[in-house]
Every structure is written in C-alpha cells, then in structure tokens.
C-alpha cells in the first residue's frame, strides 16, 4: 500500500516523532526489560496514544527506536487487536459477543447499536464519533451483556442503557 492510500494523515514521516520527554520514557521502559525489545508493546501503546493510531510510517519510526526491522514491528502490530491500523472514531465501543453475553442477549444489543449508529461492527459512524466492534469475551460475564467503551466496562446492558451511554459520548 502506498502512503496516503487508505492511510490518511501521518504521511510525512518527519512529523511522526516523539518529544524529548517521550524519548526519555521510551528509554526508561526499555531499561525495565532484560532485552529492551520487551518494551515494544508498551511503546506501541505510547505511539497510539500520541498519534491516535499506528500508521506504516509510525511503525517504521518505532522500529528505529528498537533497532528492529519495520517488518518485525508490522508483524506485532497486526497480531494484536488493540492497535488500530486506521484512525478509529473518537470513541471505540466493543461489544462482547461470546457465550455468556450471547445467552444474555448480546445479539440484540449489537443490532440496537448498528441501528443507532448506522454502521456494522468494524466500521466508524459517519460523524467520526464511534467505532463499533464486536469482540470476544471481555471477562465480565457475570454482568452480561456487556461492552467496553474506551477504557470503561459498561455492564448489564439494555437498549435503554446503551442509548444513555451513547448520549454521553461527545
């Protein structure tokens, strides 16, 4: 994929850099592991928090911080579900669709969200507000059906509760 093709923003690798303070944090994280590469996942989190998502140029930049090949970083980024490879909405709503949530009505909750947001799981609402995901067990099955909204777990969902939560998302 060429730059700018499906990877909007961050096409200029020169803008894809950490501040001095962040670089110090990278070094601190690297020093926590017997092999500095242990810090790759945490540094990728830092990168994502800073730039919103992880573009190819950003992968290349992170690779230089570790003396790793861009291919290694790409392999890692694509293996895990919590790194975004395109810009997500301002909020990410991940509804659990595994067994206990399924038994408690997760399909209805997902249908409700699809209708409210006008998107399918994996898509972002037109206004860029919400990315909807349908995910595996988040291990809060005692409060099924449930979903994660950004950092928070939202439990014991009903359509009314979902509406209230959506209203609170700017």
């Amino acid at each position: 994929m060429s730059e700018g093709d499906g990877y909007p923003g961050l096409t200029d690798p020169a803008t894809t850099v950490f501040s001095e303070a962040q670089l110090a944090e990278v070094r601190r994280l690297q020093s926590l592991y017997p092999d500095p590469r242990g810090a790759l996942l945490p540094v990728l989190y830092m990168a994502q928090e800073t730039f919103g998502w992880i573009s190819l140029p950003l992968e290349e930049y992170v690779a230089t911080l570790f003396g790793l090949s861009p291919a290694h970083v790409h392999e890692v980024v694509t293996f895990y579900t919590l790194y975004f490879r395109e810009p997500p909405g301002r909020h990410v709503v991940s509804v659990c669709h595994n067994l206990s949530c399924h038994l408690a009505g997760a399909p209805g909750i997902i249908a409700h969200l699809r209708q409210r947001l006008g998107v399918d799981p994996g898509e972002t609402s037109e206004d860029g507000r919400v990315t909807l995901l349908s995910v595996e067990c988040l291990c809060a099955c005692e409060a099924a059906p449930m979903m994660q909204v950004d950092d928070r777990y939202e439990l014991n969902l009903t359509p009314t509760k979902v509406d209230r939560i959506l209203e609170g998302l700017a």
Partner: protein
Amino acid sequence: MTGEMILTRNFARSDAHTLRAYLETGGYRAWAKAQAMEPTAILEEVKRSNLRGLGGAGFPTGTKWSFIPKSHAGPVYLVINADEGEPGTFKDRYLLERDPHALIEGMLIAARAIRSATAFVYVRGEYVEPWRRFSSAVQEAYAAQYLGHGFDIVVHRGAGAYICGEETGLISSLEGKKGWPKLKPPFPAIKGAFGAPTIVNNVETICHVPHIVNRGAAWFAALGTKTQGGTRMYSVSGRVARPGVYEAPVSITLRQLIYERAGGVTGNGRLKAVVPGGSSAAILTADEIDVTMDVDGLKNAGTMAGSAGVIVMDETVSIPEALMVVARFYAHESCGQCTPCRESTGWIYKITHRIVEGRGRKEDLDTILDVAKRGAGTTICAFYDGAVGPYISYIEKFRGEFEAMVLK
C-alpha cells in the same frame, strides 16, 4: 455450605485495594514470616499444601517451582499470568481490582522460594481499570519499601490476543514479539522469558501463597480433596439467578455451586447443560452435575476444571447455536501457527454457522467430529485441544438437537 472466605474475604470493603486496608487485615505478615524461612522451606510448604495452578492446567505449584535448575547462576524470572481471557472466567479481574496487595505479597514469597529478583505481571490489555489498580498498589508497595530491595515488579500490558494467556505465547509477547506459543520442552522453568528459567503462575494461584505461609500447608490441604488443597474462585455466568464470583472449597459439587451459591437456574427454569471450566472444557449435561469441582474430579468426569469458569445453560438455549458462538471464538483466536488448528477452527466455525442458519448437511456432524479428533494432540500448544473439547462434547451429548437441524 458457604465455607471460609480466604481470597475474597476483603471484597466487600470499598478500600480493599489500598495498602492501609491490606495492612489492617493482616497483610504482609506472611512476607515477614517467609523472610525468616529458607527458600526450600517455603517451596516444601507450598508442595505439601497441594496447591495446584488455577490458570487452567492445574499443575502442582510447588512441583513446578522445584523445576528451576538448582545450579543456575543467572537471573530467574517470575511471570504472573494476568491475561485472563478464557470465556466465562472473571476471577483474576476481581483479585487485581480488589486485592492487588495479596498478589504482590504472594509474589514476594514466591520469588524468594525460586530465588527470583525480577517479576513481570502480564495484564490483559482490555483490563485498563484492573491494570491501573494493580499498578498503584505496586507504587504503594515501592513507597513502603516492600519492593525495590532485591525484588522488582514490572507491570506489562498485553495488547489483545487470547493466545497470550498460554504461557509460552505470553513469554513471546513479553519479549516484544507476536504471541506465538513455543514447543515444549524446553519448559519455561528451564528456558523461559528472555531465555532464562521462568516460573509462570496465574494470579489466583499466587494470591493463595500468603495464606499458606500464614496458616500452614496442612490447613490449606485439609480445605480441599486428597489431590488438591484449598478453595478457589468460581466464576459463574449464563442462565443463573445470581451470576458472580463464588469462593468455595474445591470439593464443592457443581450442583451445590449452581443451586446453593448462584441461586439456581434463571426464573427457576430447567437446567440443560453446564460448561464447568471455561469454554475450553467439555460440556456436561444436567445429569452430570454431581461432580466435585477439583481438578481430578472434573477430569474423571471427562471434562476439566480449567479456569473454573462455569457457564450455565437452561432449556431455552440452543446447543448448536452455543457451539457456533464458541467455534467463532476459536476461529478468531487461533494464532495460525499449526495447520490443524488454523484450518480446523476456521472450517468448523463455517460449518456450525451454516448448521445454525438451516443450511447444514447430514454429513456435517461427522465431518466436525472426524476433523476434531484427528487434529487433537498434534499441535504446538493446548489451544486446539481446548477447541476440540467443546466441538466433540457438544455434538456427542446433544446429537439429537444437531440432527434435528441438519435433517430437516
């Protein structure tokens, strides 16, 4: 039968996660005691307690610790598996959020037993709040000088991948790689994280250790069965009146757990099936619930204690649909390294999906059974065997229900 609360004794306190509350309730006394004990004495005590790993495999903890080579001169690592991801399991989340100092104290003692100076706690990426809670407890423990004097804890966040719960996948991930499991042997105790001898233990396993040191191996062993000591935390969900975490001696029966602790089936409905140990455990029918919930009790019943995630299904539940949901999970989470696992999980999900959509074929059921049985035991890690458990048991125990769907 309620039994004694050990791991969950402080859960009702809203400040249970703070150092002050932990100290008020006798916290860090076991560590003081353990510091006066020889490492081998700690190890022997844990062995005699019959503590078995509570992450899934049920391996005797003291025995695992004894595998660290005695002659080893370099670093030894303790790695805590807080990557909780087994569908139907949520106990470690409670421990991280509500009793993080119990884990830290257990780690201090375990590290002394295996002579480790550095530990990594691998917390599931989605567990943001548990990660924050645990990280602040670690900071408190540093400020109070429990940590930093010959023992350090590094808190590491995963990034979303069930397979990183498997100990060698976890180690790969901790090393900054994709979470591909590795062939064993070598076992982590010989060659683990960063190439060094490593003990991987589950959160709950380690939280038991301070109590064993405080109250003695005999006390702990007597709480359980002949081959497994103690209590454990059962995560109960699905179609029950009171889903939640229940601590009980491992000798409790599945029937007692469902009816005496979790309030029975939702709306007094009729029980149909139960998954006793997380989604990778074979399913039990309503007639099979008079089994004890210890590792060997469930093994003898043809299933497994696994992570103690109990998922209850009543008459309203379609077993083929439940299998489809479970099969989707295994298809999504296979790391793709082994052909039987990668291919079978994908295809079996597709087949279960078409069965549920009413497009199933007569031969589908035997195809699934055949594919499942052939691949079992041939893969790098136990993930695929964990998928085979449900594939085979759901179909064999509820064959009539599947046939009614494919023979229409």
